[in-house]
């Protein structure tokens, strides 16, 4: 068998194994009865529900907004584009604490915050704050991935669609988006995962208050603080399981829809 192929597959399994081992050791810390009883607490159920709800909402929002942004960055030229791109990438480099602070300054007692509050939209210390924090945590990743996906698509496809009578917008939805499928998959997975795991920014912007703005990462932190390790690790485990299931479903789904290139390269198997 070809050595390089073997090496690549070996590496994949190595990292999978390492991660698997480390996740497994997390599972071994509490004893099972502790996990079960933790799962049944009102707090855990609340936090689980809120986590899933906010992450889903944020993921949908992120994808909705990052698609037009990624598309604009790839297809249109405007002045200062590379600065715009860099600024949009930047939050990836922020420790979550900094991002949280920045969002707090933006949406807190600022002009924008007061403006929104006049419409009854409160962001700081609220559930909306959770979504906002998750949104800005994940947006840069999605934009970057979607941008680079559109870069790889020949604009002639869009042109053919338009010459067949479809307008700019219809063409976008019927041609550009489906062609960007791979990148959309990748960015959705990254976004959802990032939203589920977002902690620091949520903590600062939404406060992280018990049974109110409490999502799983905060439950985890709160319970470590309480000294309630069983609860803490259970919320960690729950987080892992939920994310794993979501990602697995998505990966399966991607597998079905993925490119047809592979079917033709029987020599490689």
């Amino acid at each position, binding site marked *: 068998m070809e050595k390089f192929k073997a090496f690549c597959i070996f590496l994949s399994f190595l990292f999978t194994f390492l991660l698997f081992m480390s996740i497994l050791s997390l599972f071994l*810390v509490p004893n099972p009865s502790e996990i079960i009883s933790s799962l049944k607490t009102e707090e855990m159920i609340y936090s689980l529900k809120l986590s899933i709800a906010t992450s889903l909402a944020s993921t949908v929002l992120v994808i909705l907004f990052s698609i037009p942004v990624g598309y604009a960055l790839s297809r249109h030229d405007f002045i200062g584009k590379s600065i715009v791109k860099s600024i949009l990438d930047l939050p990836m480099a922020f420790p979550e604490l900094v991002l949280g*602070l920045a969002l*707090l*300054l933006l949406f*807190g*007692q600022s002009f924008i915050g007061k403006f929104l509050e006049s419409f009854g939209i409160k962001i*700081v*210390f609220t559930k909306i704050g959770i979504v906002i924090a998750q949104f800005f945590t994940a947006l840069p990743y999605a934009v970057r991935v979607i941008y680079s996906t559109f870069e790889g698509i020949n604009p002639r496809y869009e042109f053919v669609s338009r010459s067949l009578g479809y307008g700019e917008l219809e063409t976008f939805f019927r041609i550009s988006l489906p062609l960007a499928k791979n990148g959309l998959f990748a960015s959705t997975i990254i976004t959802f995962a990032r939203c589920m795991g977002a902690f620091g920014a949520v*903590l*600062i912007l939404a*406060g*992280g*208050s*018990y049974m109110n*703005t409490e999502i799983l990462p*905060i439950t985890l*932190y*709160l319970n*470590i*603080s*309480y*000294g309630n*390790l069983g609860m*803490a690790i259970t919320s960690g485990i729950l987080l892992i399981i939920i994310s794993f299931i979501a990602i697995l479903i998505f990966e399966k789904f991607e597998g079905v829809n993925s490119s047809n290139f592979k079917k033709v390269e029987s020599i490689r198997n």
Partner: protein
Amino acid sequence: VNENKSQTNKQFEGKTIIVLCGAGLMKPMNELITNFENKTGAKVDVHYGGSAELFGILTTTGGDVFIPGAYKYTADAAKRGLILNNTIKNITYHIPVIAVPKNNPKHIKNLSDLAKPGVRVVIGDPKACAIGKVAKAILEKNHLWTNVSKNIVVETPTVNQLLIYIATNQADATIIWEDMATWAEGKGKIEIIKIPKDENIIKTIPTAVTVYAKKDGDYDVAMAFNSYISSEEASKIWKKWGFIPYNNS
């Protein structure tokens, strides 16, 4: 850190201990460690972090000396049998104060002002962080809890958040530790209002040697370090950085 390696014959030459220390104690702790290393030849790996994170590390992989930001965590650790109970020593006092944004927009002068209508109060989550527990206790002691709790906009899991919210004007008042607030006050970010001794509840910051030290065979060094930072000699350094050393004697 330990520049004079040439000198041998020191008591703990070649030994290493791991200290888990509250991040708020970093400045004096750095100095204490340098001194300890020079004196004994031991190497101290210090691991600063939030009390909760330190507690997490202590329960998963351990460390030799445990110095969280508040007594509560030491008590939790003792309950789980992670530290040697007879080694617990208080190092400094931990004094709650009222913190308000620069210029004190709501003109807070004392604890009872926290109950005034329209004052946005943030406090630590009484279950999650030590300052939360103390703040609640203080307010209850002064029969203000019911009224103040109406003004509380958020209860935070970490003490850092409290400082941030005051400094960025998201809230009008909070109760935090004095040692944490002094620096920010010096830089004009916040203002501090002391709480009279009789209204206040003063806490301590403890140190303790863990069960891991015994397992690793670092017990002697850990014990030496544990005594050193609570010693008379150390108390000067604590004072220098704005802490009030605990009167051990």
